């Protein structure tokens, strides 16, 4: 550390320290600061961790930028200030620690230390984590204290407040009985956290919301008076009102002087009196207003900041939750209390009402009975009917009322049995018998079993009768078939009565509820749905009055058994006074019987008979009602206006609705079998009845019942009782609506029927429920067979026409899946023929599921037109690809067969002078092998004009076996069909059309064939010499087939002096254009060579030509001149790949010299020339790049491969080598460039062979000669003859040439030149001419003459020379 301290660069505090006059402080001027202080400062200032330095005995303060915010208002005075002055308010805590460190003690560490610091104008509750470390000088003396510190106030407070909020959360789960209790519970929690909320008040508004009553408080005077005394209403009330209005918290200030007297400090922090409070609205979910306010005091040791406000927010939320719970609890409690009260009220009401009803009922029944009984003024039949109805129902009502009354009296303890001693078996039998007619009328069996009881029983006769009749009527009501069994037996001191039935039974879960008042078993299968649900409850009560019990056992669908056990002599009976009027029997049985008989009347269905005066114009109303009387009433009311059909339950109603399609259904809701809602659903599900309006009638009055009915889709709802006017008005409105709907439907029907396209509607199952007449005429299936269910009759048989069926199925599946779509599918008409239709369908979501609607159009004709177009197109495409006559005919019959569904097809071109004719499609052979029928049909057809069609009828004139059409005067086509195949007129005309297309294609192919013949002739003329000098082989492989000319060429030009010019060239491009260029260049080149120029000169001159020939630019040429005699090759290359020179004995070299630019690129190019040595048997290959160029393979690789093939094939004849080159180098899959190549084998130098003149040397001589001949590219045939001739000459020389008996050499020479072999055999002997005996001696020369063109025997002085000459073809 240098002596100079640079402070100004060390932040704001650095500048402040540098700028301060330190001379007046205990640590003196800055220049004199000890090194230790300077080191400490330079450590402290740059740090971003808050740091404080206390220096010297007075602990003068220095600190960095990060520390400065901790000081609040103390800065900047705190800089250079002694610590004890700066932190005076906390020094009683800090001083001792600092002193300890100064005195050489350990470093201190304090965590979350509470310090009251006045740094913002008030004494603030703050928390700190800090350590004091001594700063030592070199001698170990303490120079100062290093304070590392952090302000943890925020963290400490937020943790503490979170705890408070959590505790409040627990309040919400506690059951509190009222809003006030909830407030008290909340304040109880807050009272434990007075550091944050020193005091609190909770006010709840009264019901009017005017006055806020204090319900809880702490930290301030305990009761309301005191609270209001210390907290003036003037101060608080406006805040309360404001909070109540705005529903948002509000801060109030200036409380200190008012609350000072009442504030009860808890001393946790200090005794400072709060000056501010937060007023929070008390709200609860489900309550719109503000319930009250919470006044929470703010700690005097903390300023209100975001954190504090957030805390109040959370408190407010928790309090609301607690209040909500409390109010919900209160509401629930009040609700159950109200229900209990309601139940009581209902019982009272029933008792009162029942009682009140008896009087008017009596007054209704009485006069009615009087009127009916009046013989003086007898009623007219219609009036009698009405009054009987009144009487019957008055009696029924009376019984219901009595039962209710009994009930009420039992509950009130008002009904006491009047016991009699009686033969219970006899009583039971009598009652049962009196009810028997109702059982029998219901078609049920009645079985009884009476055991004698050992002694008379004590019962209330009326009650017993009610018990039994209730059980019996119940049994009949819920037993559709089977029987009822009643038994009475004794079981010890008890009589046991059992009533068992075979009815619908009671579901297990309903059994326990069976005897409850007003409970009705959920069942729709009773005979009647009438009843109040009090019968069995009454039975229980009555049995109980006898000290007995009643129970039921049942299984759903398996009947029920009710068992009543009563003591024969009950305690109750003993205590009760005996009734002396035991014989006074009530008319009770009559009422029960009458009611039960009426149910059975409902069983006899009143056929929904047509009225006699049935007027079809009148609207039809179907009444579905299980109550006979109600049915009768409705009939009487409606009949004057409508035709009325009747049904006794929902099931019958549904059947009638489906059959008669009424204009309106008027239905009861509660009915056996199928109730009104079930009927409604069934009607709506069925598209044929879905539109019929349904009006419900129900005794269950009230808004809820109406909503249920209307929700279910009923059109109207009429509660019982209803007035006649109301009924008629509702029915009329709905019938009119229905007629309107029906009118719309008829209009729609007419509209749909007028559509040209077939129209259908199908339901979600795919069943077709509606169609129009166009549909019927397209498919042949009319409306009489509706609905059409899948699988539809127009679907194809999957066995015989799987192709049609699969396309139909695919369309149906796609339609079902997508809900819409357009398809063209085949349909089988009712009469069996297949037609094609365009089906367009969409779907909508209906009541009963997805409904499909769609249209259908017959597109058979369009489709065949389209098919024909497509067939024509396909046919044209197939024909276009064919190039010669055979291919055209092949493509033609391949195209015709599938389009016309033919099983076989034959096309033929008759033979002519020029060719043998063509047959395609026949199994084998020529015209002679054709089945006579086909041959005759074809022959007949070709004599007709093109586009005519001749049919060969099947046996007996049934079906068509074949169709034939001419293609030209000498060609025709025949299609064979399977037996009984029918050919439509469309098929015929399509065949005629296609056949004429085929005829045209045939014509084209023929002219093409001619053109090609011309082209081939031409190109052979252009290609190159057909006669080559000996030793040459050439090959040409054009890239473009069938054209056999291209841009590549070769030429072999015999030149004066035995020289031979060899050229290979490659014009740009392929095909005819390139061939034209090639032809001109080839001719020019040939002319230039004949003129005598060397290769370089030729190429240079060719440049000039190339400029004149369009398209000749960039042609590459390899030009060479061979001098066979000297064995020299001169060559020059115009941008052409190198020629290959292979040498006998192996090895190949590339002729890469003298290479210059391609032709026509630069007229100033000077072409060079190179020479190469042709050794004996050397092979020269010139080629074009088609041989070596492959995509993706470097050219050099191809050239090297070529060289290797040449090197390994030097021993081959040139033609063999040429073939091998093509076989090995051209790719098997065809080549994309022309290939031209020239192979030249340098002929051996003339043969000169000396053999000893002995017979054993003849065979080796022949072998040598053969080898030489092969090297000279002499054919095997010629070679054999030459060898034979030379062999004979040699044999002659051996045999006859020597007179002296010595062996003399024989010299054989051979040379090949200009297509002829010159051979000579010379010996030293004397040639002996053939003598007279041709036997064998002269045969040798005959052989020679036979096989050679010229044979000369030249006898000479020193011996004989035989000269022979033989020409050979190249």
């Amino acid at each position, binding site marked *: 550390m240098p002596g100079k301290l640079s402070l100004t660069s060390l932040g704001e505090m650095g500048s402040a320290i540098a700028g301060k006059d330190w001379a007046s402080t205990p640590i003196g001027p800055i220049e004199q600061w000890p090194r230790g202080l300077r080191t400490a400062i330079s450590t402290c200032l740059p740090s971003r961790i808050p740091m404080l330095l206390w220096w010297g005995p007075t602990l003068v303060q220095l600190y960095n930028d990060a520390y400065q915010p901790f000081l609040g208002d103390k800065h900047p005075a705190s800089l250079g200030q002694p610590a004890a002055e700066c932190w005076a308010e906390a020094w009683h805590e800090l001083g001792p620690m600092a002193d300890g460190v100064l005195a050489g003690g350990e470093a201190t560490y304090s965590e979350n230390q509470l310090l009251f610091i006045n740094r913002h104008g008030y004494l603030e509750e703050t928390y700190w984590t800090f350590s004091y470390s001594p700063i030592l000088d070199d001698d170990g003396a303490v120079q100062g204290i290093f304070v590392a510190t952090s302000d943890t106030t925020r963290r400490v407070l937020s943790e503490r407040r979170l705890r408070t909020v959590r505790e409040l959360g627990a309040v919400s789960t506690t059951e509190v009985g009222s809003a006030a209790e909830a407030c008290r519970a909340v304040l109880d929690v807050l009272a434990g956290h007075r550091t944050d909320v020193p005091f609190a008040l909770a006010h709840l508004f009264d019901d009017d919301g005017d006055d806020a009553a204090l319900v809880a408080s702490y930290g301030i005077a305990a009761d309301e008076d005191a609270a209001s005394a210390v907290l003036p209403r003037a101060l608080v009330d406006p805040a309360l009102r404001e909070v109540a209005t705005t529903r948002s918290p509000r801060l109030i200030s200036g409380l200190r002087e008012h609350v000072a007297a009442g504030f009860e400090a808890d001393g946790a922090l200090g005794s400072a009196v709060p000056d501010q409070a937060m007023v929070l609205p008390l709200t609860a979910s489900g309550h719109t207003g503000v319930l009250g306010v919470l006044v929470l005091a703010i700690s005097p040791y903390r300023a209100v900041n975001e954190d504090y406000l957030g805390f109040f927010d959370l408190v407010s939320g928790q309090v609301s939750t607690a209040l909500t719970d409390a109010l919900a609890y209160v509401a629930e409690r009040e609700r159950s209390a109200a229900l209990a009260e309601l139940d009581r009220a209902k019982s009272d009401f029933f008792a009162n009402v029942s009682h009140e009803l008896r009087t008017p009922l009596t007054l209704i029944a009485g006069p009615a009975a009087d009127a009916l009984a009046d013989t003086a003024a007898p009623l007219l039949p219609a009036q009698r009917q009405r009054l009987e109805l009144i009487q019957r129902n008055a009696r029924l009502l009376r019984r219901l009322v009595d039962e209710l009354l009994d009930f009420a009296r039992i509950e009130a303890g008002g009904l006491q049995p009047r016991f009699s001693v009686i033969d219970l078996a006899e009583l039971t039998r009598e009652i049962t018998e009196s009810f028997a007619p109702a059982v029998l009328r219901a078609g049920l069996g009645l079985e009884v079993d009476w055991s004698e009881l050992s002694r008379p029983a004590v019962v209330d006769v009326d009650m017993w009768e009610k018990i039994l009749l209730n059980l019996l009527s119940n049994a009949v009501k819920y037993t559709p078939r089977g029987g009822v069994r009643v038994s009475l037996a004794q079981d010890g001191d008890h009589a046991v009565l059992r009533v068992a039935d075979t009815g619908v039974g009671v579901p297990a879960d309903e059994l326990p509820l069976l005897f409850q008042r007003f409970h009705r078993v959920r069942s729709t299968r009773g005979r009647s749905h009438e009843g109040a649900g009090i019968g069995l409850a009454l039975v229980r009560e009555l049995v109980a009055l006898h000290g007995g019990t009643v129970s039921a056992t049942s299984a759903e669908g398996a009947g029920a058994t009710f068992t009543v056990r009563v003591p024969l002599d009950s305690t109750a009976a003993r205590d009760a006074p005996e009734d002396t009027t035991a014989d006074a029997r009530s008319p009770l049985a009559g009422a029960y019987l009458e009611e039960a008989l009426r149910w059975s009347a409902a069983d006899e269905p009143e056929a929904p008979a047509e009225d006699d005066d049935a007027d079809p114009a009148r609207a039809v109303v179907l009444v579905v009602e299980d109550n006979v009387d109600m049915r009768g009433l409705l009939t009487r009311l409606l009949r004057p206006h409508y035709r009325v059909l009747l049904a006794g339950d929902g099931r019958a109603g549904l059947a009638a609705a489906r059959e008669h399609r009424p204009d309106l259904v008027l239905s009861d809701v509660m009915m056996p079998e199928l109730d009104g809602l079930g009927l409604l659903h069934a009607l709506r599900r069925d598209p044929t009845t879905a539109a019929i309006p349904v009006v419900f009638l129900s005794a269950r009055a009230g808004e809820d019942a109406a909503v249920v009915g209307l929700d279910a889709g009923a059109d109207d709802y009429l509660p019982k009782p209803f007035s006649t006017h109301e009924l008629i008005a509702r029915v009329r409105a709905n019938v009119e609506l229905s007629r309107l709907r029906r009118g719309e439907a008829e209009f729609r029907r007419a509209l749909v029927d007028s559509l040209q396209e077939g129209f259908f509607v199908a339901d979600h199952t795919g069943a077709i429920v509606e169609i129009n007449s166009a549909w019927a005429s397209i498919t042949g299936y009319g409306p009489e067979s509706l609905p059409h269910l899948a699988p539809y009759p127009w679907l194809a048989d999957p066995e015989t026409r799987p192709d049609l069926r699969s396309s139909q199925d695919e369309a149906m599946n796609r339609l079902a899946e997508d809900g819409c779509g357009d398809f063209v599918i085949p349909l089988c008409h009712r009469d069996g023929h297949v037609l094609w239709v365009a089906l367009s369908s969409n779907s909508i979501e209906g009541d009963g599921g997805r409904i499909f609607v769609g249209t259908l159009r017959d597109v058979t004709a369009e489709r065949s037109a389209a098919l024909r177009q497509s067939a024509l197109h396909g046919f044209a495409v197939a024909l276009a690809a064919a190039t010669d006559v055979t291919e055209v005919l092949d493509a033609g019959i391949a195209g015709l067969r599938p389009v016309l569904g033919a099983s076989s097809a034959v096309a033929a071109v008759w033979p002519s002078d020029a060719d043998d004719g063509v047959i395609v499609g026949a199994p084998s052979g020529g015209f002679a092998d054709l089945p006579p029928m086909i041959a005759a049909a074809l022959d007949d057809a070709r004599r007709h004009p093109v586009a005519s069609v001749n049919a060969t009828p099947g046996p007996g004139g049934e079906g068509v076996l074949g169709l034939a059409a001419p293609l030209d005067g000498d060609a025709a086509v025949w299609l064979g069909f399977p037996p009984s195949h029918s050919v439509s007129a469309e098929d015929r005309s399509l065949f005629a059309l296609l056949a004429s297309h085929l005829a045209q294609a045939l014509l084209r192919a023929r002219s093409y064939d001619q053109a090609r013949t011309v082209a081939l002739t031409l190109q052979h003329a252009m290609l190159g010499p057909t006669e080559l000098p000996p030793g040459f082989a050439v090959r040409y492989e054009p890239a473009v087939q069938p054209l056999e000319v291209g841009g590549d060429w070769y030429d072999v030009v015999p030149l004066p002096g035995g020289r031979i010019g060899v050229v290979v060239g490659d014009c740009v491009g392929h095909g005819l254009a390139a061939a034209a260029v090639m032809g001109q260049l080839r001719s020019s080149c040939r002319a230039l060579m004949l003129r005598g120029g060397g290769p370089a000169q030729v190429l240079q001159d060719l440049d000039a030509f190339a400029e004149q020939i369009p398209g000749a630019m960039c042609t590459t040429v390899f030009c060479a001149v061979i001098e066979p005699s000297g064995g020299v090759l001169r060559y020059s290359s115009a941008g052409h790949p190198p020629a290959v020179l292979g040498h006998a004995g192996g090895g190949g070299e590339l002729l890469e010299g003298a290479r210059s630019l391609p032709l026509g690129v630069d007229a100033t190019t000077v072409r060079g020339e190179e020479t190469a040595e042709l050794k004996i048997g050397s092979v020269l290959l010139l080629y074009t790049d088609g041989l070596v160029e492959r995509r993706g393979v470097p050219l050099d690789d191809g050239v090297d491969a070529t060289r290797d093939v040449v090197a390994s094939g030097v021993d081959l004849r040139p033609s063999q080598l040429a073939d091998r080159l093509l076989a090995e180098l051209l790719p098997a899959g065809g080549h994309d460039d022309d290939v031209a190549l020239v192979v030249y084998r340098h002929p051996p130098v003339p043969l000169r062979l000396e053999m000893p003149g002995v*017979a054993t040397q*003849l065979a080796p001589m022949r072998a040598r000669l053969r080898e030489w001949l092969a090297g000279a590219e002499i054919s095997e045939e010629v070679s*054999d003859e030459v060898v034979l001739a030379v062999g004979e000459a040699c*044999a002659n020389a051996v045999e006859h040439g020597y007179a002296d008996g010595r062996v003399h050499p024989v010299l054989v020479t051979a040379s090949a030149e200009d297509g002829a072999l010159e051979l000579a055999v010379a010996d030293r002997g004397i040639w002996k001419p053939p003598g007279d005996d041709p036997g064998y001696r002269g*045969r040798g020369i005959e052989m020679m003459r*036979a*096989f050679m063109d010229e044979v000369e025997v030249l006898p000479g002085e020193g011996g004989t020379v035989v000269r022979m000459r033989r020409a050979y073809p190249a």
Partner: protein
Amino acid sequence: MTARITSRPAADPTGSPLVVVVGEVDLHNAAELHDALATAASNAERVVVDLTKTEYLDSAGIRVLFAHAGRVRLELVVEDNRIVSSVVVVSGLTALVDVR
């Protein structure tokens, strides 16, 4: 040895001796052919000579065949379009022997 000449009695399907000549017959080895034919003809009236595998047959060989043709019935089997067939035809041997 430029030829392998085998003679087998009654080897021909007709029951005659068969002489098969494989290779080249010239002045040097014509005597072998002579010997083989002589052996074959010693107790037969008819000898079959198979020349289909004969590569070369010069006038010395022809002479041998002529010589035997006078003594026995010779039947030559040759392959068309081969030099041997040409030689047989050119020599006039066909007038004396059966060729097939």
